[in-house]
């Protein structure tokens, strides 16, 4: 500073400041933030003003009013005397249910088809190709309608249900299965079940590590299966069989009791699974193809079987390529599940953004809440997959 000539005034240093890239970027960012905040402030104010002008009620007070309509499937307790707020959670859980089931089955099916497409067996490879080309190119909504209206609607009426013994029934109204009813004293059985479940996870990782370190293999699958069956089984018998099954029964028009899988859920799940799996299959295939051929050749020449090569050498490396696009398929599936409303599966969009919006008329509030949910689901799926992805890429040597 002292080296500056006495004439240098603040104007110059202001100019200097202005040309300082750091300061400049800060200023621009500040302006951008202000603009965004101002924009939203304007929009929100504007909306409130307009709504009031038109005599439309605003605010979230409606969430406490009783809903007054029934919902066919709910994972939490619900009837028409519960509030509109509750319908939000009923819908949300139904969305999560269909998405989780869809992701689970689409992943399994997608991997099988993707691997099959690369099979040396001509027929298997062709069937996989055929599957992918068909289901990837038919619009999803059409597929949902196909399963719901064309396939599931041809099932017989409740009185002529297809049945397995007296336990499971299938008809146009759904699939009726026995339900486990937990009685007093069943806590210990449930505990034993989960304890074993946790144990199997530990055994899985332990055996994997041991194999890495010593090369010794362990029959993980057989051992775990035996564990899961015997331990809870023995506890169950010792506790005096405190769990029983409730069978569905035809009473009046419909089956009562037991567990019901409604056809809306089934149709949507099949359509989402089949559709998304065709994309996942392509992702899996490209992931596998991306692994250097030398890797599998080396593995085969080391004496590993084909299955082992795939499982231990190819797939782990392919995962790095597979995961990012897989994430977006999962997100797509979740978002696509909102097509539920076309066939009346009670997901968030159908229940909350459909019936609740209509019964209350509070479009802005309801749409904002619904968008918030999809945003949250999307972002959290991305985060989880990013973490997983990072872990996978560390394996690289």
């Amino acid at each position: 500073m002292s080296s500056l000539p006495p004439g240098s005034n603040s104007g110059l240093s202001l100019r200097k400041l202005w040309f300082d890239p750091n300061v400049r970027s800060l200023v621009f960012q500040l302006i951008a933030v202000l603009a965004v905040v101002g924009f939203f402030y304007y929009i929100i104010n504007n909306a409130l003003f307009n709504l009031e002008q038109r005599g439309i009620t605003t605010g979230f007070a409606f969430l406490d009013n009783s809903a007054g309509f029934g919902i066919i499937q709910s994972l939490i307790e619900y009837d028409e005397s519960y509030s509109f707020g509750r319908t939000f959670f009923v819908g949300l859980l139904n969305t999560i249910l269909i998405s989780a089931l869809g992701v689970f089955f689409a992943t399994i099916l997608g991997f099988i088809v993707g691997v099959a497409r690369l099979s040396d067996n001509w027929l298997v490879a062709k069937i996989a190709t055929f599957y992918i080309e068909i289901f990837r190119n038919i619009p999803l909504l059409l597929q949902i309608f196909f399963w719901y209206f064309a396939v599931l609607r041809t099932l017989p009426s409740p009185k002529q249900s297809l049945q397995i013994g007296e336990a499971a029934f299938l008809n146009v109204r759904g699939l009726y299965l026995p339900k486990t009813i937990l009685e007093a004293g069943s806590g210990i059985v449930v505990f034993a079940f989960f304890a074993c479940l946790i144990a199997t996870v530990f055994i899985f990782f332990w055996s994997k590590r041991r194999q890495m370190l010593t090369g010794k293999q362990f029959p993980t699958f057989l051992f775990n299966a035996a564990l899961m069956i015997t331990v809870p089984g023995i506890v169950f018998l010792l506790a005096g069989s405190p769990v029983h099954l409730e069978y569905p029964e035809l009473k009046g028009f419909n089956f009562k009791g037991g567990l019901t899988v409604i056809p809306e859920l089934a149709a949507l799940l099949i359509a989402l699974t089949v559709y998304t799996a065709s994309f996942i299959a392509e992702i899996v295939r490209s992931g596998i193809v991306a692994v250097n051929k030398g890797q599998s050749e080396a593995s085969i020449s080391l004496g590993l079987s084909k299955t082992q090569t795939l499982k231990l050498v190819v797939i782990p490396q392919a995962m790095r390529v597979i995961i990012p696009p897989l994430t977006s398929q999962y997100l797509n599936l979740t978002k696509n599940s909102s097509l539920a409303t076309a066939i009346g599966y009670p997901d968030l969009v159908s229940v909350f953004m459909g019936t609740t919006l209509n019964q209350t008329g509070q479009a802005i509030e309801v749409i904002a809440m619904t968008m918030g949910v999809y945003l949250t689901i999307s972002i959290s799926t991305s985060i989880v997959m990013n973490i997983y992805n990072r872990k996978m890429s560390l394996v690289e040597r």
Partner: protein
Amino acid sequence: MLKKTHLSAAIAAVSLVLTTFGAQAEGDTLSSVKSKGFLQCGVSTGLPGFSNPDAEGNWQGLDVDVCRAVAAAVLGDATKVKYTPLTAKERFTALQSGEIDVLSRNTTWTLTRDASLGLNFAGVNYYDGQGFMVSKELGVSSAKELDGAAVCIQSGTTTELNLADYFRENGMEYTPIVFDTSDQTVKGFEAGRCDVLTSDQSQLYALRIKLADPGSAMVLPEVISKEPLGPVVRQGDDAWFNIVKWSLNAMLNAEELGLTSANVDEMAKGTNPNIRRLVGLEGPKEALGLEPTWAYNIVKQVGSYAESFERNVGTGSPLAIDRGINALWNQGGFMYAPPIR
């Protein structure tokens, strides 16, 4: 159809958000209709007798006649109407956002809709009540026997709410199967997805003729609710509200005075002051800000309420519904229009 539902809700929301302060929010519908040269009318996606396109694609029905009456009054031509088919879920947002000028789609007048949606009901053009339709095979003769039934309903209707009330009050259980459009609801019923289809009773008769075999289904005697159906407009535009209200009143008054589209010219030559006022030869000629012949145009081009009823839902139609409570007040019904004077 599905995409459209959410799209229109979203568009309505966005338009409410973006409309600038004070601008045209509840603008002047009358001048906008006049300058457009046609009326944009919201109707159902297809409900025989009320609003349904015929084989040539022309909309017809009791609710459609209200649209035509308003167009005749405002534009002097009952054919100057464009129709927007709306499902139950879409209808209010379409009206709120200004996509349509009037909603005439078997819509029940309720407190919530009147008070918190920013809408006004411009009268009642059909007094209805909710009923149940079952397949004859089911062997049920009363709604009280429906415990445990699966019930097909349309989403976003008063029907959904009444159903829940009724079953709860009678200590019965039910499974709601909810669809977006009446077509899907009917298909669901036909395929046996549900035992019962419930809706406003008039609509049950209308939907029954949509069945592949109408004879296989029957309507149960119970009526479980009050469903006064009428045209709806946006709140805050009183001039337009009056026009729609009085278009309907003109049709009712015409019936009371014995006017029809065929005899109105003849009758206008007479001395009855009520008739002379209605056709615009006397009395409050410019009260609505329309041509003095506004009501004459309605009667001439659309007809009286009686004509509209018979043609669309009455004995002259496949629905063959009795006038019943929809008769004029002096013939044992509820239809009563304030006088034109």
